[in-house]
């Protein structure tokens, strides 16, 4: 019997609804921690928080077996945690510490852990999409049953890489699933200003690709749609384009407060909080107290992880910045 790594165990923890709920809470808590660390001056560069979108990452991670590969964006803390990365490794990396998943060399936009299938997250909009297609090509070539996932934002559907990737995946029939996290904004621009469609999954037609939209706040709906897309891909029947309708609670990055959005709009979305929705489903009655309990527990775990991530460490060896450039 092989001993599993903590990350792998965490991935398997998503098999149950309780596990999923807990992970969504963890993501939320980690993001709030990061927001306060940012305000406290502990974080340099950018951070792009995932609060509000938790059901997408957790839905995906709960149906993607180990062996699948995920190519994700700079808004990647949630996906990393969902796939199994430890909070310490996320927080450490975002804070540029040697406790981070890649020792602080990457920062918030470049989380990575190959053991859970997470490629270094991509800071260039759309750049991850063709890479996922390439991973799928390798998988098809070897007749493996692993699937590649390309996770992208609504705004990324306007970049050339999106178009080229969907066309190529479709014409080659590759096992890749394109997941649009449509949170209605690309930075400060509402989708309507930049895109002549509200339903982005409709872009699948231009590639004769299986496509659908799903409620991105409902982890069950997400998991179901993505599981279907995954089976389709794994069965050699080609790629899918799945649009998860979701919302980010915070601004785009760092100090953006998101003031360009109406209070009404925010409120509507907050009232469909993915954590709340799942909690109600798990505990049809009295969910709020049980939820609070769970939140408390997770919060203290995240607090411990934060302390661990920020614990005094010997200075990073300066040679680190000159290593791993070529083999």
């Amino acid at each position, binding site marked *: 019997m092989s001993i599993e790594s903590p990350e792998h165990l965490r991935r398997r923890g998503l098999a149950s609804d309780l596990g999923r709920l807990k992970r969504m809470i963890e993501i939320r808590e980690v993001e709030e921690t990061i927001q306060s660390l940012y305000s406290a001056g502990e974080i340099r*560069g950018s951070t792009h928080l995932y609060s509000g979108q938790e059901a997408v990452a957790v839905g995906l991670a709960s149906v993607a077996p180990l062996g699948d590969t995920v190519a994700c964006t700079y808004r990647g803390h949630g996906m990393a945690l969902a796939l199994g990365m430890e909070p310490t490794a996320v927080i450490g990396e975002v804070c*540029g510490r040697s406790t981070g998943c890649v020792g602080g060399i990457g*920062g918030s936009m470049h989380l990575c852990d190959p053991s859970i299938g997470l490629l270094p997250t991509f800071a260039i909009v759309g750049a991850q999409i063709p890479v996922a297609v390439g991973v799928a090509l390798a998988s098809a070539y070897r007749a493996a049953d692993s699937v590649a996932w390309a996770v992208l934002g609504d*705004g990324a559907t306007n970049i050339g890489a999106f178009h080229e990737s969907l066309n190529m995946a479709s014409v080659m029939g590759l096992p890749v699933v394109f997941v649009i996290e449509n949170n209605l904004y690309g930075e*400060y*621009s509402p989708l309507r200003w930049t*895109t002549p469609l509200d339903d982005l999954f409709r872009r699948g037609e231009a590639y004769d690709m299986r496509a659908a939209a799903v409620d991105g706040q409902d982890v069950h709906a997400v998991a179901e749609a993505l599981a279907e897309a995954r089976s389709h891909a794994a069965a050699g029947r080609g790629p899918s384009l799945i649009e998860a309708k979701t919302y980010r609670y915070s601004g785009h990055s760092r100090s953006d407060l998101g003031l360009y959005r109406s209070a009404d709009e925010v409120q509507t979305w907050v009232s469909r909080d993915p954590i709340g929705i799942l909690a109600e489903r798990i505990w049809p009655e009295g969910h709020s107290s049980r939820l609070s309990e769970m939140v408390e527990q997770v919060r203290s775990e995240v607090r411990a992880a934060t302390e661990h991530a920020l614990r005094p460490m010997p200075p990073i060896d300066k040679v680190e*910045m000159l290593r791993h450039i070529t083999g």
Partner: protein
Amino acid sequence: MESDECVIVLGEDVGAAGGAFKVTEGLQERFGVRRVIDTPISETAILGGAMGAAIAGLRPVAEMMFVEFAGVALDQLVTEAATVRYLSRGQLNVPMVLRTAVGGGQGFGAQHSQVLDHWFTSSPGLKVAMPADPNSAYHITRLAIWDDDPVVVLEHKGLYGDRGEVDLEEPPWAIGEAVTMRVGQDVTIVAAGAMVSVALAAAETNPGWSADVIDLRWLRPWDVDQVLASVAKTGVLVTVEEAGPSAGWGGDVSLTVCQTLWSRMKFPPLRVTTPDAPVPHAQELERRFLPNAEYVVQQVSSLLETGSVPLPWWEYR
């Protein structure tokens, strides 16, 4: 923009949001959505669109938030816009500007911290500038807008926080003109962008030598005469760049000086650069990665003392 209706601004979030670094803040309120245009995330269409509008007589100022983003659309600038005048035998021209944020020091990591001036300086048909302070940014951007060719303005992110006087009354500067910021005797230090203040700070530490510090301002065309005149006097050239050793304007400048002033140079030219590596995120590493005044002093002093090019600081343990 006030003086000419032809000037328009376009890019991602330049309008309502005023730009990722707030450079275009207030412009849309003042000039309207017709002239200050928020675009989709489509760098190829932004650069190609600016190029087409420029051919048709407008003076578009396109913004790319970080210079790395030009990597998805370089073709439009260096293969298309740069060759229109040539391929039309001077009948058409492309008065567009690309403004873009460059450089490191703030922890943006490997894909948002480079300067990449060589992507542009190597293209006949383009002009490239790199302002070192707010006053420069103002005058250079004006020149760029009124110039009839495609101009790339590399704005260092580290300078966005700078506040400085802008002298609106100064007579217009000239494209390609450098400025000597400080006069000395022993060495010529040429820098651009954020490295100008690094070079100045180094020169002001009382290091035991005195330096001409030249702010190059324009990387293409660059001010050969001013640099040569200074090195003819000092006999020693040091360039300070925020770029790895196998790229960057410093190589061109150094070699041109070598070739022209060979017998008058006392020592080999020294290029102060960053390591030949991606930019690390962690502060303690990024600090060591980028040239600073202390490193420059150490490098220049070593050159002057030993007569040969020292190991870079990152090679010492």
